[in-house]
């Protein structure tokens, strides 16, 4: 049985981590492009609940939630954003290049669609016996416009690989709305069937719906059922890149934003838990304090960590043989 409080805590943790990054970003010590997932927390949590440590997860530019939900080290992530040697990529990558091999979070990278085929290849196996590791790759609606997305679906389908393609459709690619980029009335989940891949679409702000859809796909894939394509509808609250709101840019309306804010995945779930008497003010405060402590110590750790020694600049152009 899923521990519902755990789910709630996991979402809240992503939320609070992001809020803290946003708050401290203006100190100008996190000197790298940073994409926030505030408002989109339900998807990685609802997916990850079905994943094992050995499973692989990949992401793109907006990856904090995916990384944390899979169990990636918070300290290593914050340090990475601070450009420190203790970062998960030794400061080489920044916010856009998270990885934590111990947690099975393999890689995120900002080139759109870039990690999608990599996720596919990583569960290729020359042994005919079923590999019970699954691979999850998250990407936005914009990334599905890249041809490589279709190429990856095709190959995963030919080889029936256990890949869960998770599209977080937040209606925008930077400031461009869906309809200038894709046929207005098509769902991204329509693309799966063209490659003989079962596909589902759901409300990405409803963690229970995410959990159900993702669970079904992941378990089936794990049992040799081949790839799945999942589309979850959601919404980004902050600007495309950076810690601020951006309603003043007028590419989206206040009404639209308000509607989605009202649809906050955490509040919606919190209300349910409270109705069921699973969550109380007391528990909530305890959770918050626990998360706060963790965040504080992660930031302290990051800030106190050393920068990479410039003399090591060339260390990783080539691996040792």
């Amino acid at each position, binding site marked *: 049985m899923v521990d519902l409080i755990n789910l709630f805590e996991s979402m809240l943790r992503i939320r609070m981590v992001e809020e803290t990054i946003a708050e401290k*970003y*203006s100190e*100008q010590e*996190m*000197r*790298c*492009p*940073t994409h926030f997932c505030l408002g989109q927390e339900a998807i990685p949590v609802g997916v990850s609940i079905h994943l094992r440590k050995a499973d692989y997860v990949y992401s793109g530019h907006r990856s904090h939630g995916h990384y944390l939900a899979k169990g990636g080290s918070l300290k290593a992530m914050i340090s990475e954003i601070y*450009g*420190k040697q203790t*970062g998960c*990529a030794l*400061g*080489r*990558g*920044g*916010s*856009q*290049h998270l990885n934590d091999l111990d947690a099975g979070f393999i890689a995120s*990278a*900002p*080139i*759109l*669609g*870039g990690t999608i085929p990599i996720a596919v290849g990583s569960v290729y196996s020359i042994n005919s016996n079923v590999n019970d590791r699954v691979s999850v790759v998250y990407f936005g609606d*914009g*990334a599905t*416009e*890249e*041809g*490589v997305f279709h190429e990856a679906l095709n190959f995963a389908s030919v080889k029936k690989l256990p890949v869960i393609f998770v599209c977080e459709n937040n209606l925008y*690619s*930077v*400031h*461009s709305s869906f309809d*200038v*980029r*894709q046929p207005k009335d098509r769902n991204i989940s329509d693309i799966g069937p063209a490659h003989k891949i079962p596909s589902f679409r759901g409300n990405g702000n409803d963690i229970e719906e995410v959990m159900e859809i993702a669970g079904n796909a992941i378990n089936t894939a794990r049992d040799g059922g081949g790839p799945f394509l999942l589309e979850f509808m959601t919404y980004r609250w902050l600007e495309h*890149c*950076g*810690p601020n709101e951006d309603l003043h*840019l*007028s*590419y989206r309306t206040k009404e639209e934003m308000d509607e989605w804010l009202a649809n906050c995945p955490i509040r919606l779930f919190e209300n349910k838990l409270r109705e069921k008497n699973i969550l109380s003010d007391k528990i909530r405060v305890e959770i918050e304090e626990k998360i706060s402590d963790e965040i504080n110590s992660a930031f302290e750790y990051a800030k106190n960590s050393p*920068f*990479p*020694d*410039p003399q*090591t*600049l*060339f260390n*990783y*152009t080539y691996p040792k043989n």
Partner: protein
Amino acid sequence: MRKIKYFEAIHEAHYQSMQADDNVIILGLGVPGPTGIFGTTKGLVDTFGKDRVLDMPSSEQGMTGVALGMTIAGYKPVMIHMRVDFSTLAMDQMVNQVAKWHFMYGGKMNAPIVFRMIIGRGWGQGPQHSQSLQAWFAHIPGFKVIMPTTAYDAKGMLISAIKDNSPVVIFEHRWLYNVDGIVPKDPYEVNLDKAKVMLEGNDITIVATSYMVLEALKAAELLSKHGIKSEVIDIRSIVPLDIDTIYTSVKKTRSLIVADTGTVNFGISAEIISRLIEMDHSLLNNLPKRIGLPFCPSPTSPSLAEKFFPRSKDIILAVCDILELDEKNVLVKESDSKHWHDVPDSSFTGPY
């Protein structure tokens, strides 16, 4: 004499080109959007409509092919990549189709497309967002490749590029966008095949591209206080390369530094040095130096980026080395190690 910023000069070139020729189309993700490609296309959609100021899917390869198709319909597309790194997804269409389009049908077809490639540095752009691939395009017959440095050239060369019947690849450095310069209001053209002497001097020739020209001028200014007269040349046009202007200068100074925004190895500086030596193998009185990105991917951490991206300091060190000066006499001690050089000016506060 009106001064405007580099990004405004590009904007003006777009506006005037679109007004002069109904067939000019601009396309790229976010081109009609509220921030308009760092201001360079902002508001154009209000005048010219969304069919000429065209938003598009993130399909770099496909949309390059679409742009080529548009030329068949008589249009002159300007395609924008917010980072040159994204154009790697379009390399087949660019290199196999666009560059060869005129040649491979025996001159019957033209591909008058302008590609605006934005390059940059700083604020942790990192490995996939701060390459500078001019050497790639320069290696492919069929492209013209230009790198305007001043606001004046940004406007004039973009106007020329749009009129040109060849595909033209323009590299624009983000750190030039807020630098201003004298820019006439009326439309004008700047040739796409001429380097420009930015500063005259007899002691050493510093040939540079794009933003590195500013760093070279900064270096030259400091050096001049120590009696070293540098000749600084803005290459501007990589293909065709105006080697004669460079040769004339080096013939005089007999000393050469080439400073480029790209990776040094197998980069454009090598071509410049080779051509000079092919013209005169005893041209130089001392060892030439190439300044550019060292041989590793762009690191994100500011402590590494600080060493990775070359600055005027590196040019000064190179000059001292070549001319056998004591660098300690020339270099100003840098203020404080907490102050990173990863922003163009203090107004820049991220996030990209």
